[in-house]
């Protein structure tokens, strides 16, 4: 038995109905997508659960080289979708195969991952690196913001009165790579990294670098992105990255790993991920 206080379970038919139910519960109702996080929630104040899987928000659509992903799309649906396989030459399936395990991916939705935004999770780091945009609707209308900006707001409060409808991934002309350090393939990450590079005439034209589970949620390393532009993607540069990141990365200790250990490995992790992204950018392989 879970969530003892629940008085009613609703199956919302559209976004308007979900919003009016949220409003009627005045903070004591929660939207339910896959349920993985909600079922584990310690919240005893909840009285209503509002199932949003019938809102028609499970889709993956291509748009101008980018991807529009409905919030209730499961990770399995996403990684199996032909559109996601074409985006950045299959970068998303490559990442998602390494997130959690099959039965969890069958249940977890992308929207749930964005709203829960666990600091240790891989998806936030990847979305931040990709420059993903969150789109949501509340009673005042439709809104959008880059996920990184959304997570700087009191986003959990926002989604007590709003439905996240879609995640948009912009088009990129370059290569992206993802790496995570864990005790076993299935454990949550002790540190994760997603990087994208565009290379023109042998030099780095743009860079996206996100480091997560530090144990903070994934954030971009703007200073590094700037420093990489104009440089040649080679071993000399990766050695420099290793040292700089080791010196500057903002890491701390939590119950999973010590700050010292994170610092010692962060440079190697970022350099390794960048080298992979560079290879993909050059070969046009994602």
């Amino acid at each position, binding site marked *: *038995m879970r*969530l003892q206080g629940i*008085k*009613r*379970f609703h199956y919302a038919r559209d976004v308007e109905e979900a919003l009016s139910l949220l409003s009627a519960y005045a903070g004591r109702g929660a939207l*339910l997508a896959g349920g993985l996080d909600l079922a*584990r929630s310690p919240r005893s104040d909840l009285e209503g659960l509002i199932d949003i899987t019938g809102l028609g928000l499970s889709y993956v659509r291509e748009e101008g080289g980018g991807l529009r992903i409905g919030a209730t799309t499961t990770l399995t649906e996403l990684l199996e979708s032909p559109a996601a396989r074409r985006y950045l030459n299959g970068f998303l399936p490559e990442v998602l195969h390494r997130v959690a395990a099959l*039965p*969890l991916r069958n249940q977890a939705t992308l929207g749930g991952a964005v709203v829960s935004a666990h600091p240790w999770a891989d998806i936030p780091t990847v979305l931040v690196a990709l420059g993903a945009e969150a789109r949501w609707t509340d009673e005042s209308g439709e809104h959008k913001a880059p996920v990184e900006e959304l997570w700087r707001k009191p986003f959990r409060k926002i989604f007590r009165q709003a439905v996240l409808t879609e995640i948009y991934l912009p088009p990129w002309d370059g290569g992206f790579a993802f790496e995570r350090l864990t005790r076993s*393939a299935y454990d949550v990450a002790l540190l994760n990294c997603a990087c994208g590079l565009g290379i023109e005439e042998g030099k780095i034209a743009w860079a996206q670098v996100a480091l997560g589970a530090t144990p903070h949620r994934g954030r971009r390393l703007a200073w590094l992105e700037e420093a990489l532009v104009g440089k040649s993607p080679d071993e000399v540069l990766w050695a420099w990255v290793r040292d700089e990141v080791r010196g500057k990365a903002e890491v701390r200790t939590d119950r999973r790993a010590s700050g010292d250990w994170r610092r010692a490995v962060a440079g190697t992790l970022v350099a390794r991920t960048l080298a992979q992204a560079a290879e993909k950018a050059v070969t046009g392989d994602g």
Partner: protein
Amino acid sequence: MGNETTVMKIYFELNGETRYEEMESGESLLSLLRRLGMKSVKSGCDTGDCGVCTVLVNGRAVRSCTTFAAQVRGKQVTTVEGLGDVDDPHPLQEAFVEAGAVQCGFCTPGMILVAYELLQRNDAPTPEGVRAWLSGNLCRCTGYVKIVDAVLLAARWKREGRWR
């Protein structure tokens, strides 16, 4: 939102049979299934981590501990009871016995259902593929080698037409 009852009733299919069952609005699928006598569905961590509570919903393996019972309205739920029993085991169950993949047996129903989904989609998996597919199901007894062997044996049987 007032004093509505906490009990609700939904239709769903359990192992091929249509059911109309009562449940609490916040009850987990794990709790409902065990109340209905599906004792193959085990409770381990209750947090989605171990996989012993795995069932199939519309053919996909999910954790029943982190699924609300009400989420399966109108869906097909399959537990190991729906695959076979001691008198008439499913080939996948037989493969687990044949390969010696069962020790205490607590993880076995979850392993079998995840393997069932794998073999429905790919009947020629590699050992690495089987390991990756089963990586979210923990076993404290076997060391996994025999479990992987069992799934590969079942895959061979499936390719040979020994399946249902």
